[in-house]
Structure formats: structure tokens, C-alpha cells
């Protein structure tokens, strides 16, 4: 009997509590499970070859013991935790991994992972830093190489038709996720922040078709649900570096706030833009992963090669989607979250606060260190922030 007997949010909870269980089951059925770190590995290419993309996460509840020997304490604690789990064998069911230059430490983690953890297949994508056309073209070339290694690994042809089909499946997932987020617009929202992160994390643990079925079930359940989240006095948006555990969101929602929107990579970032269907599917994929995904790891100008600059115009071009979210989801305040030692988000914080201030949106900045014990002290700050919004 498989774990697929439960449906909707109950099924989500089940996957969230033990992500590897379903993956191991699929592996026993002959599926290749490929791990990926961060959201820049192009998972459509794995799906197209009938492999299961399985996102690698850390565990804030697990002390880091093994990774200390090969990745210093002054780097991203999420990546250290992920590597730690890898070194402890928690990802031994993976057939291989695809990693990328999502950020500098993610890049280095990929190399260390490859050095210390045996895998049948690995690929590293050196994602460029700018969104220029030359960078898009370059990324497309890297994806051509990715395609070649996947074909060699699986012994199968990765045709454009297969790729287009996979893109459509993932676009369907993106559309369904956006429908879920629409249900966070009412007051109270029909799905809580905790339920949302659990749902997204589950989607990143199962084949895309299975994820789409889960989403359809959840949507049906939410539209008829009797036990919707309680209405709170404040509606919040969460921005920042990775959050792959519901604990922080529980703290927010246990206070007098509904978390109704986010801009994180276990949230809207991988889902809020579709991959364009282009004659050469790699072109659409390169564009999506480089241009569409709004992570501060990528350098953007308000216009290509601009020779004059206005700070507020620059901020607007980089962050106006956030004020759009705040307007559309009727947000009262924004929690800015950057993990300690996350440079790409850390540098962004004063600018993003300038932008939010200019729009009259209040914000608070949190810098936890990816441990469960560090979350306690945040509770007081979050509660105080909520009070200031009331």
C-alpha cells in the first residue's frame, strides 16, 4: 500500500513529516530520484526524462555535527545543515544531484558535496550573474551540456517534445500554486502560512504529476473548508532567504497575525512566473531561470546599460512586485528575513527598507541562524512588530 491513500492537506502533512518516505518508495519502483539544491537547477529537464526532482533541504532541529569538518561556521547555516544531512547519509536514496551557482556558498557546497558524498550522477550549472541577453544565451549553452549528460546517464533521448511536455506539467503546477495563493487573499485567508509552506515543501518532494494531483485536491478541500484559519488583526508578508521549516511561521501565526503572502524560495519565487513555451525549449527555460526568478543573487538594472541612475527608480524596478503583493494581498506589514551569513539577502535589506518606507509599508528585519533555539527570542520581536501595526 502506498502513502497516497490520504488526500489534500492530510496528505501534505504526511509528506512534510517524512519527505524521503515517498521518494524511497518511488525509487523501489524503479524511479531515479535526483536531488537539487536551491531553485536554479532546471528541474523540467529531470521530469522530461521521467526522473523525480527532489529538493534538498536542511533541518533546523538537527544539530550540525559532520559538516563542521568541511564547511566553516561563517557560511550559510541552511547550506551547512543540508550538507550535514548529506554527510550523515540522509540523502543516500538520491541517484545523483544537480546543483548550481545560485549563490557563492551554494556553489562551494556543490563541490564539497561531490568531494565527500558518492553519487552516480552530478551536474553543476554555473548560472550567470546578470540578466543580459548574452547571459541568457550562455545559460542556454550550459543547459545544452546538462541535456547531454542527462542523456548519457539515462540512455534516453531528451527531445524538445519531451521537454515541452515537462514544461507544460510544471507550468500547470505553477498555475495551481498561484490559485492556492489567491485563496490567501480573503480575510481570513482560506489557507494558513504554515499549511502553505508545508504544501510547497511537499510539492518539492514528489513527481510533478503527483504534486499537481495534491494541489487539485487541496484546492477542492480549501474551497469547501469549514476549519479555515482564524481571522487575526494583522496581515503579513514574509520576504527573504530560505525558510524550509514551519516553525518560524507558526510563531508569526500564533501571534495576532495571518501570514498571507511571501517572497521566498519555498513560496512564490519558483511559481509566480510560467516558463514561456519557445520553439527551442531551452531558450524559454534559460529566460525563466535567469530573468523571471526574482532572487537577489542576480544583478538587475532598471534598464540595460543605463548611463544615469536614480536610486528610487532603481528600487522601484527591483522591488515594485513586493508593493504589488502588499496591495493585492492587503498586507499591513512585511517581515524581512535573512539567514545569518546570507550575503545576497543581507546586502539587500537597507535598500528594500528604503523602498518599503517610501511606500509607507512598515517592516521588521530578522536575522536568525537556522536553529530552532534561535527562534524563541524572535517571538517577542514579532509580537512587538505586530503591536506597532495594530
Amino acid at each position, binding site marked *: 500500500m502506498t502513502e497516497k491513500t490520504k488526500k489534500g492537506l492530510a496528505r501534505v502533512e504526511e509528506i512534510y513529516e517524512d519527505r524521503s518516505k515517498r521518494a524511497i518508495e518511488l525509487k523501489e519502483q524503479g524511479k531515479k530520484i535526483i536531488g537539487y539544491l536551491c531553485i536554479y537547477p532546471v528541474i523540467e529537464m529531470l521530469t522530461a526524462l521521467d526522473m523525480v526532482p527532489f529538493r534538498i533541504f536542511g533541518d533546523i532541529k538537527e544539530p550540525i555535527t559532520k559538516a563542521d*569538518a568541511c564547511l*566553516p561556521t561563517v557560511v550559510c547555516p541552511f547550506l551547512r545543515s543540508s550538507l550535514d544531512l548529506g554527510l550523515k547519509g540522509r540523502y543516500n536514496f538520491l541517484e545523483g544531484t544537480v546543483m548550481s551557482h545560485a549563490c*557563492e556558498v551554494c556553489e*562551494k557546497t556543490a563541490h564539497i558535496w561531490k568531494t565527500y558524498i558518492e553519487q552516480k550522477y552530478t551536474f553543476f*550549472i554555473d548560472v550567470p550573474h*546578470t540578466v543580459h541577453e*548574452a547571459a541568457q544565451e550562455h545559460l542556454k549553452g550550459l543547459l545544452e551540456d546538462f541535456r547531454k549528460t542527462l542523456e548519457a546517464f539515462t540512455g534516453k533521448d531528451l527531445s524538445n517534445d519531451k521537454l515541452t511536455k515537462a514544461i507544460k506539467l510544471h507550468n500547470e503546477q505553477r498555475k495551481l500554486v498561484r490559485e492556492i495563493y489567491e485563496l490567501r487573499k480573503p480575510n481570513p485567508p482560506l489557507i494558513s502560512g504554515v499549511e502553505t509552506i508545508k504544501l510547497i515543501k511537499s510539492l518539492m518532494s514528489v513527481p510533478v504529476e503527483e504534486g499537481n494531483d495534491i494541489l487539485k485536491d487541496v484546492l477542492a478541500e480549501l474551497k469547501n473548508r469549514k476549519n479555515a484559519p482564524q481571522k487575526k488583526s494583522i496581515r503579513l508578508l514574509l520576504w527573504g532567504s530560505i525558510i524550509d521549516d514551519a516553525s518560524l511561521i507558526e510563531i508569526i501565526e500564533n501571534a495576532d497575525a495571518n501570514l498571507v503572502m511571501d517572497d521566498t524560495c519555498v513560496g512564490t519565487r519558483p511559481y509566480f512566473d510560467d516558463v514561456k513555451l519557445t520553439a527551442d525549449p531551452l531558450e524559454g527555460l534559460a529566460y525563466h531561470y535567469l530573468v523571471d526568478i526574482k532572487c537577489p543573487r542576480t544583478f538587475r538594472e532598471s534598464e540595460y546599460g543605463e548611463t544615469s541612475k536614480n536610486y528610487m527608480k532603481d*528600487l522601484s524596478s527591483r522591488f515594485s512586485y513586493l508593493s504589488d503583493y502588499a496591495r493585492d494581498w492587503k498586507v499591513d506589514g512585511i517581515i524581512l528575513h535573512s539567514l545569518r551569513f546570507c550575503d545576497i539577502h*543581507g546586502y539587500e535589506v537597507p*535598500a528594500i527598507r528604503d523602498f518599503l518606507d517610501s511606500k509607507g509599508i512598515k517592516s521588521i528585519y530578522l536575522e536568525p541562524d537556522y536553529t530552532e533555539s534561535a527562534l524563541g527570542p524572535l517571538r517577542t520581536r514579532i509580537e512587538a512588530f505586530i503591536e506597532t501595526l495594530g
Partner: protein
Amino acid sequence: MADEKKKKAISRPKAMYPLRARIDEVYQNSIKAVQAGKPTGWCMVNWWEADPIIMAMGIEAVYPENYGAVCAAKGVAQKYLERSDSEGFPSHMCGYARNTIGYTARMNDLGRIPEEAPMGGMPKPLFLLGSGALCDTRFKWFQALGRYLDVPMWTVEMPQPGVREEMMPGAHDRNIKFMVKELRGFIGFLERLFGKKLDWAKLEEISNDIIEMNRIWHETNELRKARPSPMHSRDFWTCMTGCLYPAGDLKVLIKLYNDLYIELKERVDKKIGAIENEKYRMTFAELPPWHSLNIFDTLAERGWNFVVESWAYHPPKPIDLSKVSDPLERIARFTYQWLSGYYQNAMKAKEWWGFFAYPYMDFVKDYQCDGALLHPLITCRTATNHLYLIQDRLMQTMKVPSMIAEGDIVDLKLFDAVDVLRRAETFEESMDHYKEIRRKEGFEW
């Protein structure tokens, strides 16, 4: 005699002094030129990818990274670091970046260069040049300066080829093509910004001079493989600036680097070392504590000669670029060689971290090092990520031990020199032990 001046433990090459003076002079001239109205840009060190273009356009380049080291060495960085913290930037970020952010915020308040700024300070730029090389900070930091400087910014791309994927057929040429395209974009940006055309003949001459200067600097460092080694890391760090931040009349710099080469060659021939009693040959990684460089003098008194260091600041291994007619392609290939030339053996050895970590394995073998002093920086991921891996690989493959001393390039509060010196004594026992192990296992040193 009690009043006799104590002899310095590190014998510094005489040719280093005019080279250092020239570097300082060029810097001062650059400041004066900018103050007199010459266009200027603040640039990340870009490993010669953009420098020749900037120079050929007649723009003065100012390097805030280098200025961060200057502020640290002159003891004024702390003020700027604290200002950066108060601006809301996390305190764990790059010391150079925080120094620049604090400096710029203060310059903004005053409407002029702060009076305490060493070496005349950094004048306000007309553009910012970020770089995709090595770390995210190199463009995020400049982007963050937008709070204080309403000037445009360009980021030069640099693929990071130290992995197996970049050795796939066609990957090398694709990377070069990408870099060239981006350089053409950068030229267009500068031409629009300054309303003038690039002098291609000048670009040709400058890029060739840079290549030649680096060739001599490379050959100079090759001489350090000799026993005893004729130049200490302190002099490497002093002299590297001319190559890393090329400025002024490059032909003068070439002559000065050549003088240094000649002096070191003579030292090698006469078996004169940088320190009198070279007991331990050392490698250093990555960036040194600029505020506490005198610790190396104390270690030299114990017989520690630092013979090789910081691969990222070494010049590329020379390659023949004479048949490359397009100067932009020549520049791209030269810079790419810097990133890729040190790990050509890495893949054969199945060392998957081709750049950053691997060069030290070659260095330790080629320079016959007894130990490594590794300096993790609390505020720099780039200089720190790979150090534990280096420690492991050096021991596993060559039985060379490493000592880790945490610190920072700018923030002196984060470095404990006394502790390092205390641990050095014990570490010598470890180096002696492994020297014996290497001898038994048939290593050459």
C-alpha cells in the same frame, strides 16, 4: 649592545621599495587627476577583464577593495565599519564592503572627502564596476552603494570554470564568447556614458603590457620555489598591487617588476633567503590580517618563511595569446586562464573543487611547503569556504599539516595575534612530525 637596532627577520628585496613607491605615487596621481576633473570609476578588482578598457578610455579606476586594506592598515577602518553597521547592513558582511559603505555614507553627509581618509580618500565616481568573479559581494556591495551614489553600475561577467562541467567539449570557447560579448556591452556602456569612442590601438597596447607585466610577475614568483626562498609573502602582498590594480604608465611598472625579478634571481643564485634561517616553508591562505602584518615578522624570527600564498592574487600561468587578433578575446582568454590555469591537473586527480582549493595542492608540492597557515575570515565567505577542504586535502594527499587562525582583513577586533603565536609553537612540533612522515613515505621534501 642594548641600543643596537634589532635586525629585521624578513629581508625585503631592495627592488620592492621603488615598486611600492610607484604604486603609491600612481594612486596619489590618480586622486589628483580625478580631483582635477578626470572621469573616474570605482571598480572591483576584475583580474584584468575590464581594466584595459577603462584605461584605454582614459578613465581613472579607483579600487575600494584595495582602499579597504589601506584603511585597515592605517587604522581608520573601524570608524567606517561602525557607520556601515548603523546604516543597517549586517555586521557579518565583507569588511572591505562595510568599510566602503561607511566611508561613502560619511562622504555623503559631509559633501566632501572625509578629513581622516588615508591617502587622499576616494573621490566620488561617475560609475561603479561590479564583477561576477568569485563572490556575490563583488556586485551586491556596489549595488548597495546606490543608497549614497546616484551613479550607474555595470557588472562584468566571469564564468567560474573550476569544475568538470566546464571541461566539456566547447565549454571553454563558449565561456570566452560570453565574456567577449559582455565586454562589448561594457564598451558600449562606457562610450555612451562618456560620449567618446574607445581607442582600440591604445587598448591593444595596454592589454599587451598587462599580459607582459603578469608574465614577469609570474616568473618572479616561480623563483620562490628555490631553497631558501628569496621572497616572503609580505613582499608578495606589497608587490601584487601593481599587477592587480594596473594604473599609470605600465611600461614603468614592467621595468620595476623586472628589476625585482633580477634581484630575486641573484638571491637565488647566491642562495640568499628572505629569512636567515628558513626552518619551515609555509603557504598562507587566503587574505592576510592587514592590520596585523607584523605577526609575520615574529613568525619569521622562528624560522617560518612564507613562500607562497593566496592563489587568487597570483598572476595567470602564462599562455601564448599572440595569435589571438581580437584584443577583447585576448583579454577574455587571459582572465579565463587566471581562473582555469591552476587546475588543469585537478580533474585528473579527481579533485572536484578545481579552483580555490586545488591550487594549494600544486603550490604545496611545487614550493615544498611544511605547513599551511589558514586564515578564515569571519566576514568573507569567499576566502573561507574552502579552507577546511584544503586542510583535509593537504593532509590526505601530502601529509602537510595546517593551522587555522580565525580573523578578519579589516576588523582587527576579530584577530587574536597572541593566540596565533602561542599555537605556532605547538604547530612546529606537528610540522616536524609530518616532515618525518613524508620522508618515510618517499615525498620529495
